[in-house]
């Protein structure tokens, strides 16, 4: 039983970052009907940004908790600004000109950007993973027989904070309301006075900031960044979006966590080799029984 709860906890911790990246996909897709295949690479940029900042600062080991948290937040901020800017550039140069009519056009365009970004990362940092020193001092908390590391906790809290912020934005702010309106009916939203191009920028910007934060969290959790880290991670997050449907952001959050949990359980009880297969099995099941996603989607 204890083992089960441990796996559950591990799963929720890991799943929270799937959720954040999946939300980025979902946001852009539901608001703009665009599949941004470069989104996982923006996540990768976040991890590398953390790498550059931490190694560039020559951070000494053995920092106190307060200093470590401050440093973490600083790295997070820099990474989010970087990826946010990257997202805005992507929106202006690649997404805005290609969105609208045919759904495959931005899909292909962003796929090209994704390949370009992967190869650029390879050029800049080398093809092998680089080591990202973790700035969080390594404690392990034990609560009732369940062990949680400080880094796991940091990742989880970051993800939760981001998801809460996103939920607040979408439900309780003027622009968030406009975003929901554009997702449902861009023509009517425009006629109500909403600058749809501005909403497009905001949406991609927010999704990119989220991906950047997830990149930092994951980079520090696994203490590594690699040019192709976005590939599998992004694919699984994309699957989360497909499985959840793009109608409710809470659904995407839930499925992200679910994926993390199921993966952890499969790893713990069946075989760690099957971990990556879980997402795909889930996708196949959903496509078979409920292709619009578990919680429904807007029409494309």
């Amino acid at each position, binding site marked *: 039983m204890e083992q089960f709860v441990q796996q559950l906890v591990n799963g929720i911790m890991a799943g929270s970052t799937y959720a954040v990246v999946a939300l980025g996909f979902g946001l852009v897709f539901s608001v703009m009907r665009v599949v941004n295949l470069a989104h996982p690479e923006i996540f990768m940029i976040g991890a590398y940004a953390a790498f550059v900042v931490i190694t560039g600062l020559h951070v000494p080991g053995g920092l106190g908790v307060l200093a470590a948290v401050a440093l973490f937040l600083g790295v997070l901020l820099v990474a989010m600004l970087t990826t946010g800017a990257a997202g805005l550039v992507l929106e202006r140069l690649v997404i805005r000109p290609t969105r609208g009519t045919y759904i495959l056009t931005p899909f292909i365009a962003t796929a090209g950007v994704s390949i370009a970004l992967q190869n650029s990362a390879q050029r800049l940092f080398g093809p092998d993973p680089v080591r990202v020193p973790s700035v969080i001092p390594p404690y392990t908390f034990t609560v009732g027989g369940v062990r949680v590391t400080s880094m796991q906790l940091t990742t989880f809290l970051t993800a939760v904070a981001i998801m809460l912020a996103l939920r607040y934005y979408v439900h309780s702010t003027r622009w968030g309301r406009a975003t*929901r309106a554009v997702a449902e009916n861009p023509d009517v939203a*425009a006629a*109500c006075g909403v600058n749809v191009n501005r909403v497009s920028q905001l949406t991609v910007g927010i999704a990119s900031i989220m991906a950047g934060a997830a990149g930092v969290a994951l980079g520090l959790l696994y203490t590594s960044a690699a040019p192709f880290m976005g590939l599998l991670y992004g694919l699984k997050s994309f699957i989360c979006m497909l499985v959840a449907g793009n109608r409710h952001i809470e659904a995407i959050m839930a499925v992200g966590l679910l994926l993390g949990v199921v993966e952890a359980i499969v790893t713990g009880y069946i075989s760690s080799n099957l971990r990556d297969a879980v997402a795909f099995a889930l996708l196949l099941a959903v496509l078979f029984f409920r292709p619009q996603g578990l919680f429904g989607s807007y029409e494309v």
Partner: protein
Amino acid sequence: MLLQVSGLEVAYGPVRAVRGVDLEVHQGEIRAILGANGAGKSSIIRAIMGLVKPRGGTVAFAGHALHKLLPHKVNEWGIAWVPEGRQVFSTLTVEENLLMGAFSRRHGQATDARQQQVMDMFPTLRERRTQLAGSLSGGEQQMLAIGRALMSNPRLLLMDEPSLGLAPKVVRSLFDLAQEIRARGISILMAEQNARQALRVADYAYLLEVGEIRGGGSAREMESSETIRRVYLGG
């Protein structure tokens, strides 16, 4: 002259939906564009709103050229749209729909006052404030769509087939409402298939056939015209 449309051409690929249309709306008027399905009425409305780029012609509002503007700018100038088939934001609440209508106006006291005004006009909306718009009946959604458009304090309301899909009793009160809106100083340009009701409230009407204006006149003139009687009013 509030709205002046000159030589409007709207085409979708090779199909010319609107061919050289001239029309006007004066301050304080209700003008109707009458015509059958597919005549091009919606295309005219959409072109004025900036939702489709005209291939030719001009749209001027209080002297300002609008035909090159994006829809949100057209809305800022004082034109609001009540789309065909209501098209309320079904995943937003009634209140949120109304707030969306006022998006171009900053938030604050004026918007709150406006919202109260609209809900005074449509008490059902006040009752259903926190309900999702998708759960409203057709008639209620029409009220919401109109209320939403009124939220931006427009000078001109564009109504696209407002009676479509509504029960006859509701249709009657809808056109009564149009008169009420005019009485408040808001001009209306409506595209309608229901010529009888439209002519009851309109000051002036145009007849649109296959993208061209085939005639126009005051509502009385149109009502007594042989063509209209025969084709639209059933003799």
